[in-house]
């Protein structure tokens, strides 16, 4: 099942994949045990002439321990999963790196638009420029996208980064990531946003640092 995951190109994607693998193997054991026991009992305890069923109600604690002990183990594993999970969530969603490259983003029916700081490196100045549907970032660099919707809820999703964040109208939501491999990757919208939802397809383009500098330079509007 895990092999269906697409390649991971982000710094934190591996944490998410590892957590998924931990969960997968833990629940996998329980799944096989439960289904296996179920199937085994169905076969083993088919009606046989002369062999009545065993009258056991599971009312005493001793009998119930067959259920309660496994349930207690489930509880322990559940809490273990949450214990492993919290740092991963915090890394992606809470602990934003302070010195990230900032890019602005908007979403609307039915395209993305990203605003870059231009040659001066500062967002919100006169040399900013905007591109539809293309998010350009340098490799191995923390980037921080502040996104807002102009109409309905959309969702910023880059499978190979493992990031997803709903984009709301009326407030800014924030995404950060660090891409470790150059390339061009799809950026779908992952929240139903109308009849054109399926067409709302952006791209993450990851450049080498030098390429990125040149790209910014070439796109910055003339003074």
């Amino acid at each position: 099942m895990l092999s269906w995951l697409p390649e991971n190109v982000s710094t934190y994607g591996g944490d998410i994949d590892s957590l998924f693998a931990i969960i997968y193997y833990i629940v996998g054991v329980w799944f096989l045990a439960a289904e296996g026991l179920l199937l085994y009992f169905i076969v083993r305890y088919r009606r046989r002439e002369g062999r009545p069923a065993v009258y056991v109600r599971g009312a005493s604690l001793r009998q119930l321990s067959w259920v309660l002990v496994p349930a207690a183990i489930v509880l322990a594993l559940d809490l273990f999963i949450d214990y492993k999970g919290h740092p991963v969530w915090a890394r992606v969603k809470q602990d934003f790196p302070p010195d990230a490259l900032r890019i602005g983003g908007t979403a609307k029916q039915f395209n993305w638009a990203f605003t870059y700081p231009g040659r001066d490196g500062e967002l919100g100045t006169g040399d900013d420029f905007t591109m539809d549907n293309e998010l350009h970032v340098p490799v191995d660099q923390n980037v921080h996208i502040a996104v807002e919707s102009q109409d309905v809820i959309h969702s910023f999703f880059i499978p190979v980064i493992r990031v997803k964040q709903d984009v709301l109208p009326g407030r800014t939501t924030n995404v950060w990531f660090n891409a470790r491999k150059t390339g061009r990757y799809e950026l779908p919208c992952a929240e139903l946003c109308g009849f054109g939802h399926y067409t709302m397809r952006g791209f993450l383009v990851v450049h080498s640092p030098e390429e990125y500098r040149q790209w910014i330079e070439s796109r910055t509007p003339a003074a």
Partner: protein
Amino acid sequence: MGTHAPAHGGSQHADHPEPTTFWSKYVFSVDHKVIGKQYLGIGVFWAVAGGLMAYVFRWQLAWPETPVPAFGWVPEPYMYEGVVPPEFYNSLVTMHGTIMVFFAAMPILLGAFGNFVLPLQVGAPDMAFPRLNMLSVWTLGVASLVLLSSFFVEGGAAAHGWTGYAPLSADPIYTGVGLGGTLWLLALALEFVSFLMGGVNFLVTTINMRAPGLSFWRLPLFVWMEVTASVLFLLSVGPLVAAAVMLMLDRTIGTAFFLPDRGGDALLWQHLFWFFGHPEVYVIMLPGIGIVLEIMPVFSRKPIFGYRAIIWATIVAGALSFIVWAHHMFVSGIDARLATPFSITTILISVPFAVMVFAMIASLWGASITLTTPMLFALGMLAAFIVGGVTGIPLGTAATDIYLHDTYFVLAHFHYTLFPAAILGGLAGLYYWFPKMFGKQLDEGLGKLHFWLTFVSYNCIFIPLFTVGIAGHHRRIYNPYEYEFLKPFQPTHQFVTWAAVVLVLTQLILLVNVVRTLVAGKKATDNPWNANTLEWATASPPPHGNFPNGVPQVYRNPYEYSVPGAAEDWTPQTAPRNAA
């Protein structure tokens, strides 16, 4: 068959004279048995409609923009010579979800089986409020007409997802759907009213009208589940009713509860919806489990293991269900610090359900199992529900949900919980209680064929959807092959669609079985399954008033099978304790 005590603690209202006219017998009936069948009719109609909608959108996913076989008759602008356009696709997925949750699962599990079986299992002559009961099914009838009409108005039926997220749903300009979206809200509101009325009946009847000797700890688990579901629904639906009213006002008279550009909030709908939405899935799940808990002991010839543990687990799960809702909203823009608390509460819910699943498996140890059709569907439900349960873990863990949210993984997960409850559980209940409801028993051969084809095709649909979900395939996408990363999955989608075709066509076997049985089947005995609970202590079908010899006296627990030293391997609840 035990002594019969005079009616005890019962409501005078439950006694109504036997109807005589066609209209009062079959149409405007206050009898819970007729009302149950009316709910069954409504639920089955919508299950078929919802299933056919799934066929249409599944065809689009497999062979995009090609004509859907057998659907060329749908006029423009819904479909164009059999081809689904994006607007109608969004409508189909929206309405499929709405229909299956509110107009198929609930009517079948609560309306049909709850109404038919609960008064019988508690030994009552009818529900506490028979006229309220009739009003509840008629309200659902009106709700159904409203929902149906939404397809035929300009702009078509709702297309904003069954979850109805605002602002997409709050202004017709965003979807192009106008009146249809408002009718959607009205239909849902009426459905809520219907089930609130029904829930009142379930609770009052169970509390007040149990037969003498039938303490709460001797109630069949199905009754416990229906009662818990009714309480969950009662306590959770209020916020959604409020939200629906606000949404309707936004859509029609220009308020802005959910429209941020005029002061509204984009997240408020989600909180109100999911506060209800999570308990709601247990409103569906628990009765489905309840049906399985009735069937398993009968065809294992031994008691359910851990009767009280199951009841405590049910109450705990129900209570927890009110504090998990934001696991549907991890990436919605809520404060990130809320994610871990909700992950913890969510993962805790797996514990009571684990208790139930382990108890059900333990119930099979040392059993004497007969794999009748109801038992096959019940065990199939359990096997499928285990998949649903384990796949909930990565979704309820916030960090993995970042990736999995709004992918097909979620979809496959909930089709491994809701489908087992509503369809596998519903079919188990149908085969099990059919003789009691209709006086004739469905054919076992056709039943087994129906089971295997249904179960295998169902798994062929949803297992592959886990894999495409893990690959990142996002939801509600009209044409996945617009995306490079999804192009490799067209063969998967085609396989899934073929499985869906098989699943739909397989239901014709049930139709044939039902028609043949009703027309020419053998009459059923009072108790064809040699079962203990009170519905089997009267005729099939029961006469007016259910227990013509008076309210039964109950002496025993519901699952006393293979009691050591007993003459038979079943000991009905009405068997006196010191009987020779």
